[in-house]
């Protein structure tokens, strides 16, 4: 922060120390033993970064933590021991900055698809310094939620697009293992989306809404939920907000769990623990959200959230 008036140096230092933890702080002033949280500027990333900053302060009181959404790519990173990349915008900044890629980094709030697209283009020495905890949950868990929440409904339907087509073999295998029928349709394009949904709903008992902006997004959510309700089909989604909107169930990554996992990985990232970094992975924690009003209206009795979480965990344990 540049001062426009002449002030004594000691006053400037005091002022500097006062404003240290604030945002928009350039890395050029980074000192020894600091950690930088680079976030993408979205409201989700900003909130999570603030929560993370608070948790990190408590865990590492001697560490200096900078929380920012901007960095000039060419600046050298003195003394920054680890980098937390929060959000896909931050990952993008990382991708463009060779300087940042020298620092051990953990990517958070990024999807597996986005992360892997970057991962494969990095040289192996950079990869040894980078890991991630994905924000999305594995399709397995979403499928298992559908299986355990609606045991009487045997046909599980999905509408695939280019984004989600690669998951088809996995879903087919799961269907066999759980003795269900997978009904997979593909979208023919944006204009025919509701028509494709109706075709799918005629032939399925549960709609598994995989995270795919080509299919389900803020604009298509209303017609999809209204249509699925008309066909009396419960929707299993991937975020708590969609459950509030009218999906019957969802599996999501709780942010408090993500904070805990970050604190577990951090010693390794900071070099305080020997051994390689863990490979990029899905969060070990997950939570189930249920919309009891919609379930009641559909005449579907639902167990507790905890019972479903336990059932999914048990299945995963037994079927490694």
């Amino acid at each position, binding site marked *: 922060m540049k001062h426009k008036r002449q002030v004594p140096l000691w006053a400037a230092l005091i002022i500097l120390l006062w404003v240290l933890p604030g945002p928009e702080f350039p890395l050029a002033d980074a000192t020894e033993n600091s950690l930088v949280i680079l976030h993408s500027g979205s409201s*989700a990333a900003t909130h999570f970064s603030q929560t993370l900053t608070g948790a990190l302060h408590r865990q590492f009181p001697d560490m200096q933590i900078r929380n920012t959404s901007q960095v000039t790519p060419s600046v050298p990173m003195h003394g920054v021991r680890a980098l937390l990349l929060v959000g896909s915008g931050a990952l993008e900044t990382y991708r463009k900055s060779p300087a940042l890629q020298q620092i051990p980094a953990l990517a958070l*709030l990024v999807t597996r698809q986005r992360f892997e697209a970057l991962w494969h283009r990095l040289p192996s020495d950079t990869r040894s310094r980078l890991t991630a905890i994905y924000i999305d949950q594995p399709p397995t868990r979403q499928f298992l939620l559908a299986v355990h929440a609606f045991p009487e409904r045997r046909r599980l339907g999905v509408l695939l697009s280019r984004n989600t087509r690669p998951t088809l073999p996995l879903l087919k295998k799961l269907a066999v293992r759980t003795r269900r029928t997978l009904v997979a349709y593909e979208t*023919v394009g*944006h204009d025919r989306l509701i028509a494709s949904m109706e075709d799918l709903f005629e032939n399925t008992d549960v709609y598994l809404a995989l995270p795919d902006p080509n299919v389900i997004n803020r604009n298509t959510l209303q017609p999809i939920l209204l249509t699925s309700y008309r066909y*009396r089909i419960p929707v299993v989604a991937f975020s708590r907000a969609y459950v509030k*909107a009218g999906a019957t169930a969802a599996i999501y990554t709780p942010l408090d769990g993500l904070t805990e996992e970050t604190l577990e990985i951090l010693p390794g990232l900071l070099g305080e623990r020997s051994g390689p970094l863990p490979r990029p992975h899905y969060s070990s924690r997950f939570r189930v959200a249920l919309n009891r009003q919609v379930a009641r209206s559909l005449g579907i009795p639902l167990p507790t959230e905890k019972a479903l979480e336990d059932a999914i965990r048990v299945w995963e344990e037994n079927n490694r």
Partner: protein
Amino acid sequence: MTCQASAEHENPPLDESYFLDESVPIVLSATRLAQPQYESPASVTIIDRDMIRASGALDIPDLLRLVPGFQVGRARIHTISASYHGLADERARRMQVLIDGRPVYGPANGGVRWMELPLDISDVERIEVIRGPNAAAYGANSFLGAINIITQHPLELPGTQAGILAGNKGNRKALLRHGGSRGRLDYRFTLAWRKDDGFETRTDPGPPEPGKTNREARKPLADGMRFPLFDLRTEYRLSNTASLEFLAGYNGGVRRDGAFDEDIDSPREDRITSHFQQLVYHHSPGADRETRFQLYHTYMRNSSMTIYPIPDALRIPLGLAPGAAIVTDFGITEQRLEAELVHHRSLSSDLRFVAGASARLDRVRGRNWFSREDFIVNHLYRLFGNLEYHPMPRGVLNLGLMVEKSSQVGTRLSPRIAYNHQLTPNHGLRASLSRAYRLPTIYEEHIDGSVYLPDGRLFNRVYLGNENLDPESLTSFEIGYLGRFPEFYSTIDIKLFLERLENRITSAKNWPETGEIHPGQRTLRFINSPGDSFIRGIELSCRWRPTKDDMLLFNWNYSDIDGNYLKDFGPSPYTPSSWLFRDVDNQVPRHTYSLFFMHRLPGNWELGALYYRTDSMKWLGDGDYLGPQDRLDLRIARTFRLNGAELEASLVAQNVLDEYLEFRDENVFDTRVYGQLLLSLY
């Protein structure tokens, strides 16, 4: 089955906001969700779009044959009376009928002019029929029951539909529908045109009424209709938590009325103007609460007139000039304006409530009906609420209350208490007790069916209203069982009911009127009949539905009504002890059955069949005593998938069995056949 994928459009990126953004609008809010059957305090039957299509019905009231205990009769092709547990004249006025939360029974005589509603059957998404009084939730007039018609939301019709229909008896229909979105605005509209030549009437004498030996031949009716119709439904998303809906519609054209060989009531064409405008504001800040405010206006006008040149044999003794004629204006104008506010809230997982208030203004004008030039105005204020409480996980207690204050009869309270208990997740019992009132209609209070000569002298007075009428009161008790058998895809709904009807409003003969050409002539006058009637019975509905398109539904109602009502003031009208009563016995048919079947075959073929039978029943008003009637409707259809479009071709035959009689014994319903082509473009 997978289809070829084509290039996808630009879509929102797969970033953290996609998973974590909390500001997603609530779509399935409290008012959008139907109450599950096993928690409902009353017996409910739901008719969905697939059933509507498979039934082959052209008009909404015909769908009520899919509900146990309903009788549907047509006085003419364009005048349909649908009632629950009988007690219906040509404008059955003891039912509440709502379209998207807007009551559509008319203020004048309380009935629903089904064929004058600005709504086409293809607009209907779902019909919820509440079998039993439900005043606590639906207000005055939900006396014997309530019919809640929900139309398609604009997003449920993306694209265009065009249809054409042709059948016998001059039955023709053309239809165009379109739905779409522009930014935050979603809309759909329907344009239709219909025509029908009506019933063929018999003039030979019909069967004698009970207790009589012969019948006179009735005069053949003039019948037929042709009309255009338009309706619109739009929704504008104000924010993530609020939206504004605007609905409007129009129905016009002509309906043929009157009878041949009649003098005053001669054949004529009634010109219809019927329209409505409705504004609805929804606000749902959270999944646990929702507020709905609505404002609507409905207008119905029927213009019709006859001119009866007085024959010389009558004119000369009366001392009237040559060419004197009696001009009768049958026209009637009805208007309603209402504002209503409703709030839904879940206080906890065990406690939910609905509360609301409304203010309504009704006004009616009809020179011939009321013998006055001005509008007759009624006000109605309502305060209502329902509390749903789970005292234990398996039980639900529903407490409802409606307080109504009307300018006609003052304040009345309609309470309801119901308890549902789930014995197991699939089997439940229900008991409920409620009281409902039916306010007198403007017709019953003010009708003055006077016929005047050109020089102003009163010639005849056919009906006389009574401003001192009390509302009818219905106390109802029922116990019911609802069982689901998921392994057999079946449900069974049985109820036993006992209803007591008091203060029945009826028109009794021989009320003296002075000041007439023929002194000593009597008239019909509306009065609350002393005494009461009891209706008791059993109702059963069994449903097997393995898939959305395959269903077998069996409905049965057994009803027994006891009691009598005032029919004739007798020789001394001011001496109640000389009044003559009539038994109500046959005004509710003893048995009503229906069997409905629908099935989808491979190759996109659909079959539908509806068999309906009702025991003998005396229809009130102009209706007759009809013996047992049955009817079988059949439908076959095939859907063709074309490139980006779908064409449905269907053939329907209504009443393939012997001809039967509807409402009066002149209305012969023989077999009606029609074919329809419906093209849907996405």
